[in-house]
């Protein structure tokens, strides 16, 4: 029983690793579930025991990358950082982890993150959103704005985040430098919107 479960985990990881490579090399359209299964050395149908769709594979890759990025961020976090700086580091760590198959994410993220698509096959997109927003709320709380935050605030955050994510996935500027600027501006906008919710907080020191 235990062996089976370990084998399952190993197969899942093999599938994800193969998918990551294929997406990086061939993009979203150039990669089929059949290719992924073949590259991982499993039968085409076996993939569907693990993931219900190609989107679900990408969502799992993203969830994995974001979890690693979160650990990285927590490890490197410095107490002296402003809220804006913390959020920037947290978000960009996630994007960097996904950089290799960035091009595949433009199409995939449309489905994964769409509030209009709530398909039965997988809720990985939802789970990514929930995890991410929880992390963001924790960061904000650490900077003196106690939760729970108003739904509007978090919706504003998520809208900005998706905008940055979509821009980044298709960013053609050298080394995606425009995304850096867009993220910077977006976070200024967002942290500015928190002004009414907090007292003299850390990000306000910039206005001195």
């Amino acid at each position, binding site marked *: 029983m235990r062996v089976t479960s370990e084998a399952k985990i190993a197969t899942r990881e093999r599938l994800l690793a193969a998918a990551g490579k294929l997406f990086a090399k061939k993009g979203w359209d150039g990669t089929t579930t059949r290719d992924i299964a073949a590259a991982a050395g499993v039968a085409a149908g076996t993939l569907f025991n693990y993931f219900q769709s190609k989107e679900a594979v990408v969502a799992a890759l993203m969830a994995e990358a974001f979890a690693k990025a979160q650990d990285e961020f927590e490890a490197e976090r410095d107490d002296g950082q402003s809220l804006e700086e913390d959020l920037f580091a947290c978000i*960009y760590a996630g994007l960097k982890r996904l950089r290799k198959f960035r091009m595949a994410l433009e199409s995939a993220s449309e489905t994964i993150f769409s509030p209009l698509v709530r398909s039965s096959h997988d809720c990985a997109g939802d789970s990514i959103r929930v995890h991410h927003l929880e992390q963001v709320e924790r960061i904000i709380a650490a900077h003196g704005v106690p939760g729970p935050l108003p739904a509007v605030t978090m919706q504003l955050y998520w809208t900005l985040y998706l905008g940055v994510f979509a821009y980044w996935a298709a960013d053609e500027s050298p080394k995606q430098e425009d995304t850096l600027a867009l993220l910077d501006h977006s976070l200024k906008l967002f942290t*500015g919107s928190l002004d009414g919710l907090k007292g003299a907080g850390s*990000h306000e020191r910039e206005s001195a």
Partner: protein
Amino acid sequence: MNVNLRELMAALPEDAGAETGPSAEAAQEQMRELAADLAMRRVPINSLHRLWIVGELSAQVALAYFALWMRQGFADAETRKRRLMETNLRLALKMFHRLAYLRGAMTKIGQAAGNLPSIMPDQIADTLERLHFDAPPMHFSLIREVFENELGKSPEDLFQSFDRDGFAAASLGQVHRARLKSGEEVAVKIQYPGVARTIDADFRNLGALLFPMRLGKDWESIQAGFDEIHRMLKQEVDYEREAESLSESRELFQPADGIVIPRVYPDYSTHRVLTMDFIAGPHLAQFLAANPSQELRDQFGTKMYVAWKRIYDAHMNYADPNSGNYIFMDDGRLGLLDFGCIQHFGAEEQELLQLSQPFLDSMDSFPEFLKRATGASDSDLANPEYVGLVADAIGWLIEPAVEEGPFDFGDETHLKHGVERFFGLVRKRYTRGHPMFLYYFRSVFGLWAVLYRLRARVDVHAIFRGAS
């Protein structure tokens, strides 16, 4: 908040009543409204608001110069065309207003346009000086990513130590102190991501904004001027180019000169990151606060002029000599910073400057110079008023070099004469000229503005005769 603009607007030449019809007045009123609006607008976000404050004065100054051109256009056009231009211009100004409001690089353009014209009232000069130390801030998380993009490593990995907060603003970026692993104290200039690439797009927009002015008399000259600004701005945000200018200029000086230009560290530099020696010491305001002796002021002033002339003799122009770019080192040496805005004179420019060289002794070559430098026609040259006004302005420019002995740059009347003569030229629309003169004059007036605040006496005559 609006005082500087009002002063500047008030200082603008008034055209004769007949030329300034009611429509022109209406447009001017619109301008004032827009300008007042510009001054009052607030963005409710801290850093953006700061960016805006930086842009505000520049935008105002730029607007005022648009007004100047506008009046030139109005005086030339027929009534019907005038109406059309007025409408276009109003739209254009609105667009300019929004662009300046939103865009960093556009701010930079405003700044350049604001610095170029030859005169700056004291308060404006002071405010512009401060701008050099007050630009949109980048936090360390962003800087780390810029470093990873540019040099493949984070600042923590590259340097022994690296200050998280910048200590000065740079061309669309900021400067941080750091220490190399080999021990050298360095200043690291970092550019805001992506902003250099927006300059081309911003100039395309600017071209559209200036479109209504194409009917004006000096359109070609204005266009050439903006092309020159475009070229120089692109150069200014290319830190690799700046590194070259730094190294070239550094070679021109010996330790005995007491003039220090920072050394570049190429292994830690790219076209968006520039690592160079950190030069310790006060800037002008701090230096003056310590109430230095006249002798010390004169010594520093002389070094400034010697540095400018030495670079000029090497066919370059230190075109942005604002007070933020000078360090008054405790040991009496002068530090020169920021070599982004350096003109490189080619054969054509050198030839033109050569023609003006004999002016120190006689004005014989003046008509030829005028023809070449301003495209003056024979009938222009036969116009004694034109020739007289330009000769007058040039006479003022070379006065410090012609007068024997130390020239007192603290003398307010000299500056005032310059302002009067400049406006004399503008009022008569005699401002055409080779585009190289935009930055040439900027450098001369920039240098003089610093020397004026320093109240320095400098033997320019001796420097120009090679005796210093």
